[in-house]
């Protein structure tokens, strides 16, 4: 492959069309085909959505825990925070390492690598399409939650909502790039997905899924905020639920981590493709 994988596609230029329009066209086609595919797996995706109930479980614990009241967080604030965390989690879940590993082991990777499209975009489109498939399920679950816990009902301010949506989407990309970096190790090892656990564990304990970071001891909280994990959950959840948050510092952390992860992914991808020798080869 002499064509550099992440350079804009040549086809658009050759036909005289601007590269951007061409990229948009490809993006739309990718998304639509992946969405059609994901719709076939509705039942599975519903089950995946249901397996993310942990934040709601934590809400039921925290709303009755004396420690929560002692920290000055009301049951209502907990309900909003954890519902927001639940929704954010639904739209930041990443599974690229498993999809890639399977494609690699089953030999599906070779034809995909021949296409004049960097693989990462195909997987990213699959994730976005899966999120679109999840959307109605998540909305039903939110409605059920509001029905069960009516005092949780709130409407975030438009600014906060926009910032939360932005933060959640950037959080998805952070999570995606982080796991994609591990995914690239599939070029060197057959079982790179085993390493994903070492991403999930710090994510579980530092993202704010089990408790708002405000309840953490100061030193742990400050350490957590240096890692990329709170950007994937705590930041968007606090923005949406109206909790106290230093949004500027939060987005700065997101920017720094994106700036770190993008070149790492590029380097690993280039080195990996050069090393690729197809399964069984």
């Amino acid at each position, binding site marked *: 492959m002499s064509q550099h994988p992440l350079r804009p596609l040549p086809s658009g230029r050759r036909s005289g069309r601007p590269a951007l329009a061409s990229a948009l066209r490809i993006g739309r086609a990718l998304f639509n085909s992946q969405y059609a595919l994901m719709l076939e797996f509705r*039942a*599975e995706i519903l*089950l*995946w959505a*249901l*397996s*993310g*109930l*942990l934040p709601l*479980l934590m809400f*039921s*614990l925290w*709303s*009755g*825990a*004396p*420690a929560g009241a*002692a*920290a000055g967080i009301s049951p209502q604030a907990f309900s909003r925070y954890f519902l927001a965390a639940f929704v954010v989690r639904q739209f930041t879940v990443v599974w690229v390492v498993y999809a890639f590993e399977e494609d690699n082991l089953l030999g599906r990777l070779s034809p995909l690598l021949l296409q004049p499209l960097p693989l990462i975009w195909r997987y990213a489109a699959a994730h976005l399409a899966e999120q679109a498939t999840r959307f109605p399920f998540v909305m039903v679950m939110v409605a059920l939650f509001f029905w069960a816990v009516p005092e949780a009902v709130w409407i975030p301010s438009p600014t906060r909502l926009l910032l939360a949506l932005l933060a959640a989407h950037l959080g998805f990309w952070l999570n995606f790039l982080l796991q994609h970096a591990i995914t690239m190790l599939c070029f060197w090892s057959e079982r790179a997905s*085993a390493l994903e*656990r*070492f991403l999930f*564990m*710090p994510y*579980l*304990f530092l993202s704010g899924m*089990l*408790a708002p970071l405000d*309840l*953490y001891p100061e030193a*742990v909280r400050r350490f957590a905020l240096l890692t990329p994990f709170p950007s994937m959950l705590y930041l968007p959840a606090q923005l949406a639920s109206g909790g106290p948050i230093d949004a500027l510092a939060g987005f700065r952390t997101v920017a720094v981590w994106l700036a770190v992860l993008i070149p790492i992914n590029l380097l690993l991808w280039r080195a990996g493709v050069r090393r690729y020798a197809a399964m069984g080869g």
Partner: protein
Amino acid sequence: MGSTSTIRRHARSIARFWSSSLAAEMEYQLNLLIEVAATLITLTGSLFTLSLFFGRGQQLGGWSWNAALVVLGIYTLLNGFSSTLLRPNLGNLVKQVQSGGLDFVLLKPMDSQIWLSLRTLSPWGLPEMVLGLALVVVGTIRSGAKPHTTALLTGGLMVLAGITILYSLWFVLAATSIWFVKIWNATEVLRSLLAAGQFPVSAYPPALRVVFSTILPVAFLTTVPAEAILGLASGGSLLAGLVLAGLSVVGSRALWRLALRHYTSASS
């Protein structure tokens, strides 16, 4: 019926199965390091999370920090048990149904439920079981409960009952793959809901407490055994746990029989 010889034959086969799976897994000794590291990180995180509920002499659902450690220890123990036996075997059951390999299992001169439930043993859950047990011991000693023989015996019995219930939940879910081929994602839902067992069931709101004692008996997996070990369990909950364990075995057995009657192999 030579039932003792049947049992002996099954036991001998299972011993062979396990020693061969252990020998196979020993090819991947680096895994042990990875598992120990992962278990230690997870346990540290869980202890930290639990500690957030216990600032300044607070309690969680009437449980002290040390007593709650026993619950977390039993949860860790059961989690290790799941990785050692339940996940590898019952994941395999689903695959056998999808590929049609179940046909060959049914032909074997061995009980199919036992074969499917005990065929392999993955040693990588053992570090978690050991650490879970250690946490139980630490929590019990620190909470000042006198190590009564009766309390320890009932505790051990209730842990066994919990393991039985947990097994039945997994097996029933895996067995339904005979009807719904792609059931495996449902085990992720089960796994995420079982995470509720890390905390004493009395910490949950009343409505959830009812759910966790009936539909999804998380209470009998961790809380009741912990109460038994600490000598706090009521006779009623002990009896309920044992009855539930018995019922779950009978239920899983009956469901498996029913499933086999509906089994039509993969290609038909």
